[in-house]
């Protein structure tokens, strides 16, 4: 094994910035990253063993402890819970004889929870040895476990058949469904991939390209909405030995799965968007950061890149344009929501913990390895070739003034037709609810947990950068749902789980808020607790990154729009209660001494 590990390390030229890949490779041959491998990494890469562990322990999918032969990662997003996750978990626990969060005694099965895996329209879902299993039922779980015990290969277990579209390709062969229910500017098949690269680039200057992108008024589709043309302009202006263009395919906002569908059906558009971006910005390095959960697309995406290389659409002097050298490498993530934040993503690409950087400097000035770096979302890049073919006027004719073009929504939850909807910006929430067959709606989470939870009075509002901005996640909650215990609590736990922890407010305030929120749920709340939640949430706004700054949104927006749900739980005519449970607190010591104290209620 030692030789194998050393070989892996030398495959990456002992380059510590490639630690992510090295750890993935070690884990795939050794099952986990054991102490001996860590020692070798320490010797070969010149970093202390703790520095290696620092990276391993940051990412959900690396392990320093033995995993099972089969590892099951069961999604714990709110939609999974709404669609029967509990029964699936129980069945896995029983059939595999293992508790969630551990490995069975015989070492056969590991069973773990994991944050949203981008399958919200086909929950409950799990990743089993890297393969995606969706729409699980207890029956199917029993069958899968039985077959695995019988020695069948994971690939033979997809009795559902493939999910259609390119999911059927042998390189993917997955049961994942695209569920495209509405096509617009991006998802319509009206463009021959690489046409722009082949016919436009050679007779258009980089500045002219940036002009078109800027005039189209396209803004980043990941959620932050930064004008793409401006970003490219900054990137082009910034000085550096190399320029970098990164595609952010780390969509981790619970409830979003549109990048998964774009990458499955339109990877050529995404990669061509990167090539055009590289030409415009002057980039020679291209990176696509693919979230680990979408590893099942990796071979397929690499094949698309290989085809591009053999057609001179990547590599040296692309399509005969002298001096236009650019290639793309796919970097697999390892399970960290925070890496969707562009500077955390860059840290991860450099083989480090995915902790956001302080800004300024922004990535366009100093990004990957300190080179000027443009980071764009999958959807943004996929729109670029079409904008350049059809023109910025066409793009401006879609959507509304502040928000041109279309937006791809990932809709899930309590609706009859969950899936992918491409709509023009400016579409009202009411229209969207009608489209997806959502009846008896109590609330909608727009833009994921970091967005807003809105109720009926806001259904007339529209998705727009000036009204309800969104990266695309939309989760519908019916009248029967308990918003506080089922929804808000799930989101609170999500932010606690996914905080990098490096800044004091996000690391600590999320748990303080949870304590106070739980106090209300436990029936010990008083009116001032609601004010505390609102006031204390303010402190999160000084956090370093978007995760921290929005981590209280589930609480604040549910108080704003559903205050009565909180008030209903408060104690009647009680103004003060510490929430301290004396009896509970002395339980352990009572058991130890074998005596019961006389408790005086304060």
């Amino acid at each position, binding site marked *: 094994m030692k030789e194998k590990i050393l070989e892996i390390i030398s495959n990456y030229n002992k380059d510590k910035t490639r630690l992510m890949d090295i750890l993935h490779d070690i884990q795939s041959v050794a099952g986990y990253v054991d102490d001996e491998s860590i020692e070798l990494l320490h010797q070969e890469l*010149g970093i202390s063993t703790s520095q290696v562990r620092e990276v391993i322990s940051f990412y959900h999918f690396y392990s320093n402890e033995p995993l099972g032969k089969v590892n099951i990662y069961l999604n714990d997003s709110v939609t999974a819970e709404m669609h029967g996750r509990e029964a699936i978990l129980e069945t896995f626990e029983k059939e595999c004889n293992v508790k969630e969060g551990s490995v069975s005694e015989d070492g056969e099965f590991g069973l773990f929870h994991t944050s949203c895996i981008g399958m919200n329209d086909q929950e409950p879902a799990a990743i089993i040895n890297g393969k995606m299993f969706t729409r699980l039922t207890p029956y199917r779980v029993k069958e899968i476990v039985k077959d695995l015990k019988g020695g069948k290969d994971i690939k033979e277990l997809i009795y559902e058949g493939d999910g259609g579209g390119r999911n059927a390709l042998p390189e993917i062969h997955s049961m994942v469904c695209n569920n495209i229910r509405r096509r617009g500017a991006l998802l319509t098949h009206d463009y021959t991939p690489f046409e722009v690269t082949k016919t436009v680039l050679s007779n258009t200057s980089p500045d002219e390209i940036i002009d078109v992108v800027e005039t189209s008024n396209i803004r980043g589709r990941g959620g932050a909405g930064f004008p793409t043309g401006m970003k490219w302009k900054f990137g082009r202006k910034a000085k550096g030995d190399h320029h970098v263009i990164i595609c952010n395919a780390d969509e981790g906002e619970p409830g979003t799965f549109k990048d998964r569908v774009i990458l499955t059906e339109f990877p050529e558009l995404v990669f061509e968007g990167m090539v055009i971006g590289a030409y415009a910005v002057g980039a020679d390095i291209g990176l696509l950061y693919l979230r680990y959960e979408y590893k099942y697309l990796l071979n397929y995406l690499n094949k698309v890149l290989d085809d591009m290389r053999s057609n001179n659409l990547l590599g040296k002097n692309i399509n005969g344009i002298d001096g236009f050298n650019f290639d793309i490498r796919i970097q697999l993530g390892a399970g960290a929501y925070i890496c969707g934040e562009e500077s955390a993503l860059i840290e991860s690409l450099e083989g480090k913990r995915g902790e956001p950087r*302080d800004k300024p400097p922004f990535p366009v000035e100093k990004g990957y390895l300190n080179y000027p770096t443009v980071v764009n979302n999958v959807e943004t890049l996929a729109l670029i070739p079409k904008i350049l073919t059809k023109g910025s006027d066409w793009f401006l004719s879609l959507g509304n003034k502040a928000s041109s073009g279309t937006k791809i929504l990932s809709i899930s939850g309590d609706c009859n037709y969950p899936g992918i909807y491409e709509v023009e910006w400016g579409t009202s929430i009411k229209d969207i609810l009608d489209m997806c067959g959502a009846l008896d709606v109590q609330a909608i989470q727009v833009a994921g947990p970091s967005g807003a939870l809105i109720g009926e009075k806001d259904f007339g509002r529209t998705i727009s950068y000036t009204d309800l901005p969104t990266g695309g996640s939309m989760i519908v909650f019916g009248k029967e749902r308990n918003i506080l215990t089922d929804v808000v609590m799930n989101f609170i736990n999500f932010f606690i789980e996914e905080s990098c*922890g490096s800044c004091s407010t996000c690391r600590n305030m999320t748990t*303080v808020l949870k304590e106070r929120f739980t106090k209300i749920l436990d029936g010990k709340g008083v009116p001032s607790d609601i004010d505390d939640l609102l006031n*204390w949430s303010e*402190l999160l706004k*000084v956090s370093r990154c978007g995760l921290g700054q929005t981590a209280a949104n589930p609480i604040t927006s549910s108080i704003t729009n559903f205050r009565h749900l909180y008030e209903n739980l408060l104690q009647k005519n009680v103004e003060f209660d510490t929430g301290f449970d004396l009896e509970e607190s002395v339980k352990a010591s009572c058991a130890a001494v074998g005596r019961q104290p006389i408790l005086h209620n304060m």
Partner: protein
Amino acid sequence: MNNTIKFKIDGKEIVAEMGKTIVEAAKENGVYIPTLCNFPGVPPKGGCRMCTIKINGRFMTSCTTPAAAGMEIESDTAEINDLRKSIIELLFVSGNHFCPACEKSGNCELQALAYKYQMMVPKFPYSFPLKEVDASSPKIIKDQNRCVLCQRCMKTIKTEDGERYFAFENRGDKLEVILDPELGQKMTDEIAKLAMDNCPVGSIIQKEVGFVEPIGTRKYDKEPIGTDIDV
């Protein structure tokens, strides 16, 4: 080329060399902005958020933001002082900080800042987390109860080859700064002392020496934090 810039903090004109961070520039001009994770000579990493200021109405950290000509900065205002106090309170309730029994009392920046911002009882509930004390190194004790995860030891305590003695482990509310077990065994007295001195709190304590300087006569016992800077 003129290398000097001018900007304002709370209305006071600051003259500084280009490239300085706001914290540095302020300090040179006799304006104290509280810090905790910042440490001279190593790259800042706005981790504690204590030095938060407002520039044009936006919260920024002054340890990481370079000063620029014409900036109008708010620092010593009721709003910002209130949030700084809240951060200190948050750090207190998230760990187990019992000053009277701590070797760092009087030399502790967290304690000094709590006094400066007149913290009485934190407004947040104490979490009393269960934390470990690592005494495996012959030279130091790493007490997780008191660690505020400022990264100062991680950034400043290194071997000659640049390997770090201290590193992060886990993330989020499970995040800890741990001592590398191997390097911890090889630690010298000099390194141990430096680690203890660079720690703003009592999380790194040198073994076999203690209370050389009596409590009551220590740095912040004599003068409150920041008074050496503020004019």
